[in-house]
């Protein structure tokens, strides 16, 4: 029942006074229905310049081949796979928010799941560019599919982890896309019913004729729950399989059983950092302070500190196991990582991923928007270095000292990487212009139970444990969108 009120000691998920259902629609659709402001245009211009750089560099790669990259015969994977793993990892937070938190009935996900899922899709698109790019002959990408061919019936090698990756990433992308789009239908219908003319026609086509009848909603909720149920093991499997690309090889530094859980934790870690980077800005620019509250920000920071600590433990375990294995090549790989010519990459990774996120233990830092934003970017830098360290430092000194080299990226490597960030932001900025960045229907669901106004009404009605009310009022201190004066009298 929608009138069922939740415990007073839980923080409100929607703040502000006099929020109505119509108000939620208006607030969320404001950027969709109005001309963009200056901040959006500046962001969009910068991002699309980045996307142009990406387009140019990737076209250059397709035209001249991957000889244009800084790869050499010792280091055969470098910025390409680093970028791929980095982007796929970032995508993981979206699925985690939309699926895992739904299964755990974490209602605070309702206001951030839409943009996090969008982020997943755009991040996987960026990751895909590296997959296709590093193939060299992109037009032969279909060779990864088990198609009958002219070489008799020589099939793909199903024993290869790379083949598993093809299936994992393509499934991940398409399931995320369909999950996201199904969730969008009621909100697209909301835009449609307010729009006029051509806009109405376009949104009408995209809404699939959604009406919001009882049976449709019932099926919608069933489908969402099942999609969440299957996406949860899916998201864990994807980064597990990405880690197989390394773990199933015989390369010292890669050949470890810790890789799957370690990669998954790292993925969630970097993904939440990227969600934080995006939402702290989106919240301000789009004026969504009442829906994405300090509680949301703090919760995400807590997840960052948890996953960051798991990653830290994994780094130390890896080191320990290298020593404990007694394999001198394995030991050398790790000594070389931390003290060899790439020591700076290793220590950047350690600092950004293990040390600085620990600052979130301080409540003040956890609740500071600028600090959270800066730390979220540091985490993303650190996670990029993690993949770089795993890939390049394990490869650059192989068994034959005469072939030891360093990896130097060319402008094409840099262009593709920096450009892919531009591509990502271009897609995200376009998304917030044409589609609702917050799941309208899901937030409406919270209005009568978990909003600040509903809780204030409960307090005014009395019948509550005064101790719990005091506790609740104290928890409101951290919100930047709550008028604390309202609580002086009650």
């Amino acid at each position, binding site marked *: 029942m929608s009138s069922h009120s939740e415990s007073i000691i839980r923080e409100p998920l929607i703040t502000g006074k006099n929020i109505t259902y119509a108000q939620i629609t208006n607030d969320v659709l404001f950027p969709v229905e109005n001309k963009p402001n200056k901040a959006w245009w500046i962001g969009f211009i910068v991002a699309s310049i980045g996307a142009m750089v990406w387009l140019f560099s990737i076209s250059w790669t397709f035209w001249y081949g991957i000889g244009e990259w800084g790869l050499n015969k010792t280091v055969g994977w470098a910025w390409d796979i680093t970028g791929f793993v980095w982007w796929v990892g970032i995508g993981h937070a979206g699925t985690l928010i939309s699926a895992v938190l739904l299964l755990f009935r974490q209602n605070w996900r309702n206001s951030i799941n839409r943009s996090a899922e969008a982020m997943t899709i755009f991040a996987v698109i960026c990751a895909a560019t590296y997959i296709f790019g590093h193939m060299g002959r992109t037009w032969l990408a279909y060779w990864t599919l088990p198609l009958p061919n002219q070489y008799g019936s020589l*099939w793909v090698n199903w024993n290869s982890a790379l083949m598993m990756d093809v299936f994992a990433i393509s499934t991940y992308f398409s399931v995320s896309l369909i999950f996201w789009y199904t969730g969008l239908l009621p909100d697209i219908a909301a835009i449609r019913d307010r729009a006029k003319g051509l806009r109405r026609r376009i949104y009408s086509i995209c809404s699939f*004729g959604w009406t919001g009848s009882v049976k449709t909603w019932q099926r919608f909720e069933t489908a969402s729950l*099942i999609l969440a149920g299957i996406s949860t093991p899916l998201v864990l499997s994807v980064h597990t399989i990405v880690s197989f690309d390394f773990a199933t090889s015989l390369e010292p530094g890669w050949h470890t059983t810790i890789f799957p859980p370690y990669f998954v934790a790292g993925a969630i870690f970097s993904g939440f950092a990227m969600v934080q980077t995006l939402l702290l800005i989106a919240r301000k620019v789009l004026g969504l302070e009442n829906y994405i509250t300090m509680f949301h920000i703090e919760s995400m920071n807590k997840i960052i500190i948890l996953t960051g600590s798991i990653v830290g433990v994994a780094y130390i375990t890896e080191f320990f196991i290298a020593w404990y294995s007694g394999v001198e090549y394995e030991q050398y790989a790790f000594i070389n990582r931390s003290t060899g010519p790439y020591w700076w990459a290793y220590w950047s990774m350690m600092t950004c991923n293990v040390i600085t996120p620990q600052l979130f233990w301080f409540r003040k830092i956890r609740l500071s928007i600028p600090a959270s934003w800066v730390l979220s970017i540091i985490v993303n830098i650190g996670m990029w270095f993690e993949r770089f360290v795993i890939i390049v430092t394990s490869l650059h000194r192989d068994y034959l000292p005469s072939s030891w080299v360093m990896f130097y990226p060319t402008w094409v490597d840099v262009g593709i990487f920096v450009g892919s960030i531009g591509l990502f932001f271009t897609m995200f900025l376009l998304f917030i212009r044409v589609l609702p960045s917050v799941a309208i229907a899901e937030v409406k669901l919270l209005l009568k139970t978990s909003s600040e106004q509903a809780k204030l009404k409960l307090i005014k009605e009395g019948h509550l444990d005064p101790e719990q009310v005091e506790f609740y009022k104290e928890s409101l201190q951290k919100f930047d969108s709550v008028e604390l004066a309202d609580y002086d009298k009650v």
Partner: protein
Amino acid sequence: MILGLFDDPDEMMHGIEKLQKNSVPIYDVYTPMPIHGIEDKLGIKESRLGYAAFCFGCLGGSVIFSIVYYTLVHDWPMNVGGKPHFAMPNFVPFTFEWTILWTAFGMVFTFFFASHLFPGRAPRVMDLRATDDRFVIAIDAKGNIPHDDITKILQDAGAVEVKHNDRKYVSYE
């Protein structure tokens, strides 16, 4: 078509109760968000999408397992270091991924098919605010008389507005 427009989901639920007490059949209810508990009240059976999802999942897993088996074991067995051709652990990731893929697509397309959702379908909307802030109970005007009584029941239950539409839908096209 008689439409009772409510601005509060609980009042709308109250309206449904009242109509049912007076034996007025409800055509359908349109809401901007899912209303929990409404299915029981309207006597709507639980969704069977879960069965569809399960079947599609089994199908997807079987299909890819068969493909891998056919190519790797039957059609062109490869000798990789003398290891067995039927290396089942290697089949697991593919089987798993396609089980998920087919479950997701099979179930969602079943949902779209059953609810008549497809790109370009003319939305059969009864009131434009039903996706915004109005909770709409629709009653077929034909055969349900007197209309004034129904209007009164809805108003008593707290409807902010009662509409009598000549056409069934306010469709766009």
